[in-house]
């Protein structure tokens, strides 16, 4: 029978090209390849940084030189040659003093292709954006509105100059320079990123958003994000990432630090759609990211992530529950297809009494991909009545992919309550047939089933992001169904 089967779909979808794979011809200023103290100094100098910042970078670089790349993750790849990468690439057309109107029309065109026209964002979405294209922040909107509330939202380069006391006080306090190999590298060479400060008692009136994109060939992107929510404040922050398709692997090593002071709440949502490589597993982004937050008394940090891109993902958004009654949450959807490999999860470090954490992880694997959840729940001796609930669900498509779960639990306090639930399932032919019988074609049926599977996490995303994420899941699934 000339029937359109799941196999046909698999073939069609594997051939579907990465939707964001265009490359904008911008005149870029790129540093020579390689990394040494001079390059670190040159980056710092280029950005007009004060001496303390240069020294901080150099300290990180010297530590990094002594470190080796971690190998414990369940991912296999050829290690990047760190001396073959250019560590700085700024689109030349950008002059930080100019307004949005002066931005290179080609850049604006690129945002349009991404569906993130800044004007539109301004008008429609009530979203303030700080857009990072290859390292330099080019457009910051809504600054004024936010300024009236005393909220600082700017690129970290600007913040280093304009608010050095705040940056100096908090930078590296959650993720120290020497924390790990990639964090040390980032600390030495970070090119730009976002800085955000919410003053005491202020509820940020809009979602703050940053869009990251890797454009230049052979450049790594090392953003640095620092977000401080002062006592009793609230902020919701969105981060979206895409990269054009390229044959060679691009390196992305970001660091995100969140600080939630007493009674503050931070909601941090990510949709990551870096280029995953082609269907033979060639190219794609290496995504080695360190994300961590610290909660003081009664504070709450909630990480939500939708990870559909990258050839390799190595990422564990974590929460240090330092204060009593603090709350940490991690909601994750990770989709892998073709030859993608993801090793992602979280760490919940309970130090405070009555601290609570929730982990919901949904892994979806297709093609020949490998999808691992790796999580640590640690209860310290003084964390009386700490509570954790973890749920890790895996959905498999086809017979060539893998799902793995590595939950680590360490409790030093007998009053702790820790629950862990895990399931693994496969999209069943009977489910697809049932949908078909009701008139729903296979492709749509699979999207429906996967969306249902991911619903608990999708529901945690802010509205405008949830729609985008759902679409993205569908696109990735079109390319990931097996």
């Amino acid at each position, binding site marked *: 029978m000339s029937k359109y*089967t799941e196999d046909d779909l698999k073939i069609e979808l594997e051939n579907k090209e990465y939707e964001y794979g265009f490359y904008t011809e911008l005149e870029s200023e790129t540093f020579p390849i390689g990394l040494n103290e001079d390059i670190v100094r040159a980056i710092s100098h280029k950005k007009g940084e004060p001496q303390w910042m240069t020294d901080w970078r150099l300290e990180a670089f010297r530590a990094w030189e002594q470190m080796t790349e971690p190998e414990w993750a369940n991912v296999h790849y050829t290690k990047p040659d760190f001396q073959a990468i250019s560590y700085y690439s700024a689109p030349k057309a950008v002059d930080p003093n100019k307004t949005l109107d002066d931005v290179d029309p080609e850049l604006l065109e690129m945002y349009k292709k991404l569906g993130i026209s800044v004007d539109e964002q301004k008008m429609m979405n009530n979203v303030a954006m700080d857009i990072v294209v290859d390292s330099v922040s080019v457009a910051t909107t809504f600054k004024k509105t936010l300024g009236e509330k005393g909220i600082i939202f700017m690129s970290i380069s600007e913040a280093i100059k304009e608010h050095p006391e705040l940056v100096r006080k908090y930078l590296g306090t959650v993720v120290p320079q020497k924390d790990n190999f990639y964090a040390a590298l980032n600390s030495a060479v970070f090119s730009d990123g976002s800085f955000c400060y919410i003053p005491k008692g202020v509820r940020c009136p809009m979602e703050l958003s940053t869009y990251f994109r890797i454009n230049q060939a052979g450049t790594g992107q090392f953003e640095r994000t620092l977000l401080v929510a002062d006592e009793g404040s609230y902020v919701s922050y969105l981060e979206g990432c895409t990269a054009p398709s390229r044959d060679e692997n691009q390196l992305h090593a970001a660091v995100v630090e969140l600080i939630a002071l007493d009674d503050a709440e931070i909601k941090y949502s990510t949709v990551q759609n870096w280029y995953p490589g082609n269907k033979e597993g060639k190219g794609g982004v290496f995504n080695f990211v360190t994300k961590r937050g610290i909660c003081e008394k009664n504070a709450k940090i909630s990480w939500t992530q939708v990870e559909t891109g990258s050839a390799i993902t190595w990422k564990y958004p974590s929460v240090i529950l330092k204060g009593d009654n603090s709350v940490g949450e991690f909601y994750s959807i990770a989709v892998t297809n073709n030859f993608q490999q993801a090793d992602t999860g979280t760490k919940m470090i309970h130090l405070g009494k009555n601290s609570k954490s929730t982990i919901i992880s949904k892994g979806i694997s297709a093609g020949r991909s490998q999808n691992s959840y790796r999580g640590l729940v640690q209860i310290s001796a003084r964390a009386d009545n700490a509570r954790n609930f973890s749920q890790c669900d895996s959905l498999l498509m086809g017979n060539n992919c893998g799902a793995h779960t590595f939950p680590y639990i360490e409790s030093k306090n007998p009053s702790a309550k820790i629950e862990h639930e895990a399931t693994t399932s496969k999209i069943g032919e*009977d489910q697809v047939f*049932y949908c078909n*019988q*009701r*008139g729903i*074609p296979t492709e*749509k049926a699979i999207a429906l089933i996967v969306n*249902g599977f991911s*619903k608990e996490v999708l529901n945690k995303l802010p509205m405008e992001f949830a729609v985008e994420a759902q679409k993205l899941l569908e696109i990735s699934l079109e390319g990931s169904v097996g």
Partner: protein
Amino acid sequence: MLSIKNLHASIGDKEILKGINLEVKAGEIHAIMGPNGAGKSTLASIIAGNENYEVTAGEISLDGEDLSELAPEERAHKGVFLSFQYPVEIPGVSVTNFIRTAINETRKANGLEEMPAKDMLKVIREKSELLEIDRKFLSRSLNEGFSGGEKKRNEIFQMAMLEPKLAILDETDSGLDIDALRIVANGVNKLKSDKNAIVVITHYQRLLDYIVPDFVHVLYNGKIVKSGGKELAHELEEKGYDWIKQEQEA
């Protein structure tokens, strides 16, 4: 409406249907009865287009159109509906979301616009009242944690929503208590018109007290061995399937 001629089908090496002939006209209700393993559910699955079975000979057509080359969803778009004996669970997808997707995909395939949300809600309200379905039920995940009765009621609710030309009810009575059976049967009877047709597959005569068939067929060992009016169902109830077996093996 439905015309089945000399249908042979197998799964793997095993032949299950061995030459079925069946004509169902618009406005008719047919009952197919038979002992376990006779091939009743297989017949239903094959009409719906389940590819686990291989049709080795014969043909199935709907309103003169050959169905054999059509995918299950295409058959659905043409008005074939199967109420499953064992409806599957789809976690995280609500009853409402599922039926909305089903209706809109069917409309799209037939060149129609999506149904406006307002109209959709109105129809959902009407049809759920018809089957005495609680509002809360509609936001639950499809079939997840449903009792046997709830599952079957949900199947008939979907039938009511989709308004198929040909509805095949596969063991819809199994797992139903007497009250649920009455509600489901009433629902089916209200959906019945001279434009559509219903094929009821059942093991017992019980359901046929509520959904009264125009014709009763007995399926045994992959063949229809007896056909008659509704009185045939009573006769079967009385004499049991052994009667058929003995007759066939004699």
